[in-house]
């Protein structure tokens, strides 16, 4: 394996007495598409927050492309090449889709661009087209459907040409048509060299897209395998279905 793009070493986070992340260690190589799985409350979103700088981890380290980004604020993590989306993308009510896309280019926020017009029209038109959002370009972004918001947030995340894109449930609540659109877009991004880390519940999606899965349960990494092997993995089946659980066997 090449030098890992993302390296997690013993990442931990607790809320009060509740250990949400318990020494997560994993690595992702450039170009991989990795699924991040686990039942509700297993710590997936917390892990994403800890990686992307929205939460300072209590312990451990996060390295991206050889650079230690542990504890850096979110915007610096993003500038280091890691983009992310949110599970429930909430969008501005007083900006249009087009304006949101214009703001998606982070260089807009520098003082140099203060007096320069916002819309570099062509590039934004292309994006709107590519993400099937042209017809809603002039609507307030908050008025988009859940699926359109997810597409918009992926479009925003991809604008900065990130090295690693972390997606939090990109297809949940997305209409089937847009869903296949989303898969196409993510595939293309991967082909263009973006590494993907995807939280997803939809196994179909995982199988279609991911080459590898890592599975969390109660803050611990319990599996790291190909998607096909998930069903055979006793720990995963237990975590998800609780099928073979016998009392007393559970951890803690």
């Amino acid at each position: 394996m090449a030098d890992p793009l993302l390296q997690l070493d013993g990442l931990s986070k607790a809320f009060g007495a509740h250990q949400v992340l318990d020494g997560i260690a994993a690595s992702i190589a450039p170009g991989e598409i990795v699924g991040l799985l686990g039942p509700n409350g297993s710590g997936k979103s917390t892990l994403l927050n800890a990686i992307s700088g929205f939460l300072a981890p209590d312990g451990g380290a996060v390295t991206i492309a050889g650079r230690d980004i542990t504890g850096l604020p979110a915007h610096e993590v993003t500038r280091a090449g890691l983009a992310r989306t949110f599970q429930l993308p909430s969008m501005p009510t007083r900006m249009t889709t087009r304006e949101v896309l214009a703001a998606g280019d982070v260089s807009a926020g520098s003082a140099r661009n203060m007096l320069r017009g916002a819309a570099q029209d062509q590039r934004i038109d292309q994006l709107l087209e590519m993400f099937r959002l042209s017809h809603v370009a002039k609507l307030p972004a908050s008025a988009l459907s859940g699926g359109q918001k997810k597409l918009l947030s992926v479009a925003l995340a991809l604008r900065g040409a990130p090295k690693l894109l972390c997606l939090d449930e990109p297809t949940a609540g997305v209409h089937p048509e847009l869903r296949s659109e989303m898969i196409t877009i993510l595939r293309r991004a991967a082909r263009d060299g973006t590494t993907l880390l995807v939280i997803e519940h939809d196994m179909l999606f995982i199988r279609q897209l991911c080459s590898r899965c890592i599975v969390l349960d109660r803050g611990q990494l319990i599996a790291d395998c190909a998607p096909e092997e998930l069903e055979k993995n006793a720990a995963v089946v237990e975590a998800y279905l609780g099928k073979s659980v016998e009392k007393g066997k559970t951890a803690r």
Partner: protein
Amino acid sequence: MIEVQDIRAGYGDGPDILGGISMHAHAREIVTILGPNGCGKSTLLKTVAGFVTPRAGTVRIDGQHAEAVPIHEKVRHHGVGYVPQTDNVFRTMSVAENLLMGARDLDRQTREERLDAVMAQYPSLANKRRRKASALSGGERQILSLARALMAGPRILLLDEPSAGLSPAMMHDVFDAIARIRDEQDMCILMVEQNAFEGLSISDRAYVLNLGKVALTAQAQALLNDPAMERLYLGGAPAE
């Protein structure tokens, strides 16, 4: 006991989250609502409960219109109990106080009796009756929340993901408790659940939602034996 007809609902000026849903649930029945994140499960439960007023359609409880009845009235006058998903206890208050909150309208004697009954039923709570709820474990909180809802003696129980964040062992305890409540108290239970297999194993019927619509409805056993469940429990649309 619960009858929902063609409801549409959403938040603020946002789009419809529920795009015309009809469903029903009877006494002595556990009905589970399944579906991927963002499909509208919780919104449906909240609309039935009265946190969200539907934009169109009707919600009937015992045959009476109840679309515009806020949750606190439903709890007090329509025999409804509601257990939220997270944040389901009063953290700064003791276990006993939490339980008493569930029995506001009862006279002192009934209240004490129910309290004793609950304590007898859930010994884990009895040991901690003076402890603050914030000191309880996740499973204990879930049980406490359930017990709190039962204190008022409801006939309908609305549960929002009772297994969220619980270990399998605790989850078993909680689901056992829920099934017992149905059997012993002839309760009508409407439950939103992520954990499809566990949820279905105690349910009578289920609705699967997708994108704000009912995608599938069936007997729980039938769904459990459906080979498509492997995909379903992980949230995929069963239509594929």
